[in-house]
């Protein structure tokens, strides 16, 4: 839509614009947002990928709803796929087969929908990592982190409900596992399962119920949260990476109209194009090969969609015999522990920004991002979290690892159990060391310049490599980071030292005890003088 500020008379565009503006006052929005500046960086695209794949999911999903029938009533399959002809199955399964085999473009749309869903969750995950490692969650964006976190959880819920709909062997098995987990929960488990499935597993209600969640309730909430999320991006203006000329008080980049719109709009089509390309060439979820759900057949080596892997892995890594009978009731620790583990993990992810804000006590707004090395402990915590997740995820593939590398299942599981505890600790230590080393190297380069590769012979006969000092702009990249130091325990106004203060001081030591400070001007001058003598 073109909206110009021309007076009402000139041309069609002008007339339309005038018509609209007189009824919507849209010129104000254009004035406000049309030239808004957006900073540019490849890592900012991750969030865009998530947004665009959601649009693709909505489009392809709407198409699918025209043909899919979420009913568990049983029919004899009578479609084109010969191997399943005459087989008893649910209407859900048979309509999914019809979409795949009797509707032109149906299989393509199914695969677009599924691939876009996988991309959606992956992009959200990577976007969260970007936000975490650059400290973009700091004030004023803590709440937007929470909103994004909710979106991540909702996306997984969307993925799982969608995965279950075709009522094929694998998705039925997935539901079986969920049901098994639910009934294992103390006190309420049995009843939650009973209500969810409308009776005993599998019953004949669950697909219809999941369908309502999948196409109505969840998308609505996702959409609402996306709107909130983006609204905050506008209110806060986008963060920017550190660089010369960039400050906490400005934002450097390109205007929405035209450059950003062209790039971002074009990028939507790129994402869409890539998803369609993959969907056209790579089969995903071939339900016809699995057959309809039946509680009895087995399928070895089958995997859930990737984002469920960490939960599945948590189940697998529990040691045997974790169950007790207390007070006449069954406590299924082999369910309770992994569920708690996942909840605590998610809670930590959710709460981290608030925790870091409490530790630093930093009340300023932060719009310039941290380079990950310049926040060593945060980066190390992130690395530990990623490792924890990765081990759980590997746990979900334990059987595949075992058969693929010809090792014993027991060996793989036991190794992963140990790694689940030690891995994050090692990852923490290594990441922290690496960050500090990189920071030291940065200091080194600022103080002594970089190696030019030019070797000269000094009058004394010795050879040295010529070092060249950085220019002002390059130096700024290396000296302009947030520096923190541990706080000291001090009595408050009433002369008391509270427990909270003590804890905060301890945490601030944990975060900032090992610390490389940015080079100051004085240091730099001293070093220059020093090297001239």
């Amino acid at each position, binding site marked *: 839509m073109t909206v110009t500020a021309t007076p009402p008379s000139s041309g069609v565009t002008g007339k339309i614009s005038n018509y609209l503006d007189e009824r919507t006052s849209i010129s104000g929005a254009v004035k406000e947002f049309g030239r808004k500046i957006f900073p540019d960086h490849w890592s900012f695209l991750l969030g865009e990928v998530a947004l665009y794949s959601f649009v693709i999911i909505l489009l392809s999903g709407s198409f699918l709803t025209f043909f899919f029938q979420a009913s568990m009533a049983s029919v004899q399959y009578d479609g*084109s796929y010969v191997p399943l002809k005459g087989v*008893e199955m649910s209407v859900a399964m048979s309509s999914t087969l019809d979409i795949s*085999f009797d509707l*032109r*473009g149906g299989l393509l749309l199914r*695969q677009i929908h599924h691939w876009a869903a996988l991309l959606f969750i992956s992009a959200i995950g990577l976007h969260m990592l970007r936000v975490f490692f650059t400290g973009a969650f700091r004030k004023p964006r803590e709440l937007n982190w929470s909103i994004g976190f909710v979106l991540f959880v909702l996306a997984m819920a969307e993925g799982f409900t969608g995965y279950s709909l075709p009522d094929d062997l694998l998705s039925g098995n997935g539901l*079986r596992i969920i049901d*098994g987990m639910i009934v*294992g929960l103390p006190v309420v488990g*049995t009843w939650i399962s*009973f*209500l969810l*499935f*409308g009776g005993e597993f*599998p*019953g*004949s209600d669950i697909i219809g119920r999941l369908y309502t969640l999948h196409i109505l309730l969840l998308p609505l909430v996702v959409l609402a949260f996306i709107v909130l999320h983006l609204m905050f991006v506008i209110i*806060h203006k986008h963060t920017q990476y550190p660089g*010369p*000329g960039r*400050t906490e008080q*400005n*934002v*450097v980049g390109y205007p929405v109209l035209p*450059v950003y*719109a*062209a*790039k971002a*709009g*074009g990028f939507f089509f*790129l994402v*869409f*194009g890539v998803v*369609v390309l993959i969907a*056209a*060439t790579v089969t995903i979820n071939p339900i016809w090969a699995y057959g309809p759900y039946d509680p*009895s057949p*087995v399928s*070895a080596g*089958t995997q859930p969609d990737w984002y469920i892997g960490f939960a599945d892995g948590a*189940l697998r890594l529990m040691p*045997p*015999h*974790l*169950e007790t009978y207390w007070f*006449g*009731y*069954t406590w*299924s620790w*082999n*369910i309770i522990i992994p569920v708690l583990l996942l909840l605590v993990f998610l809670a930590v992810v959710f709460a981290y920004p608030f925790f870091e804000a409490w530790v630093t006590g930093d009340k300023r707004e932060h719009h310039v991002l941290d380079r990950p090395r310049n926040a060593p402990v945060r980066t190390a915590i992130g690395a530990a979290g990623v490792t924890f997740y990765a081990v759980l995820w590997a746990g979900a593939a334990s059987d595949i690892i075992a058969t693929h590398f010809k090792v014993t*299942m027991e060996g793989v599981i036991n190794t992963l159990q140990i790694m689940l505890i030690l891995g994050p600790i090692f990852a923490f230590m290594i990441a922290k060391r690496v960050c500090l080393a990189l920071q030291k190297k940065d200091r080194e380069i600022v103080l002594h310049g970089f190696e030019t590769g030019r070797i000269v012979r000094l009058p004394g006969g010795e050879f040295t490599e010529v070092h060249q000092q950085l220019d002002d*702009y390059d130096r*700024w990249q290396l000296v302009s980071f947030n520096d*923190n130091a541990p706080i000291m325990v001090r009595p408050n106004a009433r002369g008391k030292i509270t427990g909270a203060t003590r804890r905060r001081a301890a945490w601030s030591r944990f975060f900032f*005890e090992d610390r*490389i*400070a*940015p080079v100051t001007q004085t*240091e730099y001058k001293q070093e220059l003088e020093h090297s001239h003598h």
Partner: protein
Amino acid sequence: MAKIVKGSEKSDLVATSGERLTGKELGTAVVTADAFPNPGLPPHRQRVTDTNPRRLARAARIVAWLFYLSIAGSIFTIFAYMFFPIEGGDTTSIRLSTLYIGLGSAFALLAIGIAAVHWGKAVMADKEGVDERHPVRGTDETRARAVEIFKEADEESGFSRRTLIRNGMIGAFIAFPLPAIALFRGLAPMDEDPNNLMKHTFWKKGLRLTHDPTGVPIKASDLTIGSSVHVIPEGLLDLPEAQMLDQKAKAAVLVVRLKPEDLHWTSEQRKSWSYDGIVAYSKICTHVGCPVALYEQQTHHLLCPCHQSQFDISNECAVIFGPAARPLPQLPIAVDADGYLVALSDFDQPVGPSFWEREK
């Protein structure tokens, strides 16, 4: 707070010097007056298309061409839709239809994408801009007015003054969603108790063991040593489909024949549930309920494909590995007058995953 920044005491880390600015806002942050000043935006660097008009013209041409190619791609897709029909059951035709419709539209989309991005990067004016940021918080004035508004509203409504009204309202707000929760009870049948249902299966005394999925009864003499069969109860298949699955989800059984001396029993009673080396165990994993049916003949182990729990058939299906906590329940069996395997009773305990009231 200390004026001088002290670095860490650790020797491999560097200490700084200089003044530390202090402020309530800063927390742990260290800001020194001695920090380098921001050098400002670096000089603008021109692109090739800014300096070389021929390159600019070429880039513009490419952008335009890509848009036209995209149109071609879309038209191709429509033709592909028309001329690659899917013929009943022929998988090649489905593959081709999917491929050509997909490739055509992927091409059309990618061409638009590349064109737009290239347009933005190479052709549109390369003018970096700088916006000012303002603190997110409202100005003091705005905030004061907001407080005032609430005060006025409070005064005019009497919200804090009229506690009776206020508390009544809060109570009503808490109470009104409760019926909705009650309504959800209807999600599951009213006249059934899940605990009861979960404790019983379709098996009962005298039901023959039949092949899954054919329903053909099994003769003990047909089972050779080392063989295993998937079993469902006689009559299960006569149930309406929906009930059939519910029942099968609990009643599925695996029957294995071992040499009688390979079976180790904890009690005579358990032993009496088997017949000449033939044993029947629930196939529903005691972990979270997948069908456990990978049978390893050599080791007499049953493996669950979901989370790799392993059960030892020679020891009453005890858990030997994996997250499962309990052995698979055993179905007591015998042989009837005609030599067919029959159940002696239902399982002596609930099958499948543990649940809260399991022991009740």
